[in-house]
């Protein structure tokens, strides 16, 4: 409850206030050692998987291209370590499917210095040319959606982008990697914003930061460019403030029409870490070989933010940070939208922003009771959908009705409905089931 004389902070309607557990937010980012073997999947982004251009037994240098992009909606993959290609074979990935990956046995004596760079002269390039150079560094959205950044920034035909929104809200509990990036790499973020604005043609950029990260706001303010094209706006600490739709609504008051992309209302959004990596790697011509990952959770002995080489298996990562024996569930991403994984052989990829380990007590599944029609979920849904009705329909497998009459496709699975449900009905899980069923049927038809 906000009192009338208090200053209103920009926000969106509905949403929830979970416990944030942002203890790792004041720990500096530290570098992580190489695992003996790195497993680099060929598909670390949305779009076509990359095509491997190395052979088994070949020696690779850190930063060398080991797989090339397959078309515009794809990204190249760079060797995360100097070593020798041991195999190109399927490994388990976070969806539970097997995916092709390049296995690199790391030369232990070599350091974490990037050996291969391919710098370009960036002055005088137009937007599309800059996007093509940007594809070479292989950066995908770091918030978890892993959309190739260069493809996201190019405005679709007929769309004029007037604002670049930089997402620094990081609303998921436990995750603090974006927070630390903003504190420690404000200069790189500003450089990245500059490149992104050149590609998308936006005359201004707004950075949205939640009001629980005021040290990040101070660091960013000190690095703001003098021309005033970039502004910072503090938004309320509320989940899911960092979703594309809600942050656009909080900062600009615009809503994306049903079934359309945010570019149709003149907005393109990027995560701060994505732009920090663009700002650092693009002038150097360096490939994406590592990323900052929050490793936290009650079952981790030494939580913190680490620069983890891509392809590091989670087993090695958790051993190194001292996973307690009580750890019973590992989640990739945040606790609200992240996915529990079924194997510790899954590697860290471009889309992994957090690795959280929980004990048995935290992940215990409560007993489900019937829906009492209290409407808590309706009040929590940031997309203003009707989770009550959709949940009842999902239980009856009326998936078509959910899609046709209740806008199932608009749900972005933030999990607010499941979080607030007093009957502990697994609503968002049922919506995922419904979406998966409809998608499978569409694919098989």
């Amino acid at each position, binding site marked *: 409850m906000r009192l009338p004389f208090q200053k209103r902070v920009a926000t969106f309607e509905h949403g929830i206030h979970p416990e944030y557990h942002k203890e790792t937010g004041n720990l500096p980012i530290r570098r992580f050692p190489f695992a003996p073997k790195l497993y680099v999947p060929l598909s670390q982004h949305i779009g076509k998987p990359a095509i491997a251009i190395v052979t088994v037994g070949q020696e690779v240098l850190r930063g060398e291209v080991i797989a090339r992009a397959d078309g515009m909606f794809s990204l190249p993959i760079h060797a995360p370590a100097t070593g020798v290609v041991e195999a190109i*074979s*399927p490994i*388990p990935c*976070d*969806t*539970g*499917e*097997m995916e092709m990956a390049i296995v690199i046995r790391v030369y232990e004596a070599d350091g974490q210095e990037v050996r291969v760079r391919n710098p370009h002269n960036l002055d005088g390039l137009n937007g599309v040319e800059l996007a093509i150079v940007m594809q070479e560094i292989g950066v995908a959205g770091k918030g978890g959606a892993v959309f190739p950044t260069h493809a996201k920034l190019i405005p679709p035909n007929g769309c004029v982008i007037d604002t670049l929104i930089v997402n620094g809200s990081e609303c998921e509990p436990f995750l603090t990697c974006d927070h630390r990036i903003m504190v420690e790499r404000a200069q790189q973020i500003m450089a990245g914003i500059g490149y992104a604005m050149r590609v998308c043609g936006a005359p201004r950029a707004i950075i949205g930061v939640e009001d629980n990260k005021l040290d990040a706001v101070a660091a960013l303010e000190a690095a703001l460019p003098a021309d005033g094209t970039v502004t910072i706006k503090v938004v309320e600490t509320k989940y899911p403030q960092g979703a594309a739709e809600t942050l656009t609504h909080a900062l600009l008051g615009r809503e994306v029409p049903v079934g359309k992309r945010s570019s149709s209302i003149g907005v393109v959004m990027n995560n701060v870490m994505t732009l920090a990596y663009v700002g650092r790697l693009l002038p150097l011509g360096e490939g994406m070989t590592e990323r900052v990952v929050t490793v936290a959770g009650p079952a981790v002995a030494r939580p913190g933010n680490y620069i983890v080489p891509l392809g590091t298996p989670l087993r090695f990562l958790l051993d190194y940070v001292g996973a307690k024996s009580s750890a019973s569930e590992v989640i990739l991403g945040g606790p609200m939208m992240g*996915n*529990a*994984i*079924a*194997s*510790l052989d899954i590697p860290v990829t471009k889309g992994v922003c957090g690795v959280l380990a929980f004990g048995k007590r935290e*992940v215990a*599944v409560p007993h489900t009771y019937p829906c009492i029609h209290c409407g808590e979920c309706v009040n929590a849904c940031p997309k203003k959908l009707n989770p009550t009705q959709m949940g009842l329909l999902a239980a009856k*497998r009326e998936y078509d009705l959910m899609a046709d009459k209740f806008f199932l496709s608009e749900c972005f699975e933030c999990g607010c409905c499941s979080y607030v449900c007093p009957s502990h009905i*697994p609503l968002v*899980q*049922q919506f*995922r*089931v419904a979406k*998966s*069923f409809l998608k*499978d*049927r569409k694919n*098989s038809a």
Partner: protein
Amino acid sequence: MGTVYSVLVTGVFMACLGSMLAFFLAIASKRLYVYEDPRIDLVEELLPHSNCGACGTAGCRNFAEKTVTGEIEPASCTVNTAEQNKHIAALLGVAMGNVEKRVARLACAGGHHVAKMRAHYGGLSSCRAASVAGGGGKSCSWGCLGLGDCADVCDFDAIVMDKQGLPVVDLAKCTACGDCVDICPKNLFSIQGVTKKLWMACRNEDEPDAAEATCEVACTACGRCVVDGAPGLIRLEKNLAVIDYEKNALAQRAAIERCPTGAIVWLDNECITKGKSAKKIIRTEPLPVIA
């Protein structure tokens, strides 16, 4: 006087209006009359009214229309008893037709006593929910998750889950409606004719050693069935034996006898038998979860 007058006017007006509308309705019913074969209703009466769609039509009424016009044979309804279908054929004076009975077959034999688990799934009890949440924890990414979505969705109670967490199809009850095919997140069910004798009960595309390490009854692509079967009947594809059902008539039991894991099986209606060389598994309790 005034009251009587207004009642009279109202009565006459309503009578005129009524007879006028009746006249129009009488004309409309003559002019817009559509002839419908009375046999459609009779046939529909003899159908099971389950509207399952197994025959390939949009429902029982649609099936009745098509049988009357001769587009579809009475035997195509697999839900009805043969007796009932004979009545339909006799009513219409057409041949019963010779439609092979089809049933749902599962392409996995990895119950939890033979297939390893690498994680325990404890969320919403549905195969698809498990498969969306990190794949469900089974070591084999292709295998049956055993939470019984198919048994839930079956309108005819033809599928029950056995003690090892695998669905068992009651062939007598199965109507080949295909609901289990749609619901299975791993696409393990398919509708097959009962005359098909050879069946590949595995979908694991992994390398042979890895496949056998995850599941004791996985296909290891050893190729013995390819050699023992009729030429061209079985081939290897993606580390799996693939049966060419166009050569179904050539199928001999010899093809499965040397299978070391029992991934390829011999079907004889309800009876699913493994070859003589298949490893004998006497364990019935689940394997422990290995992370």
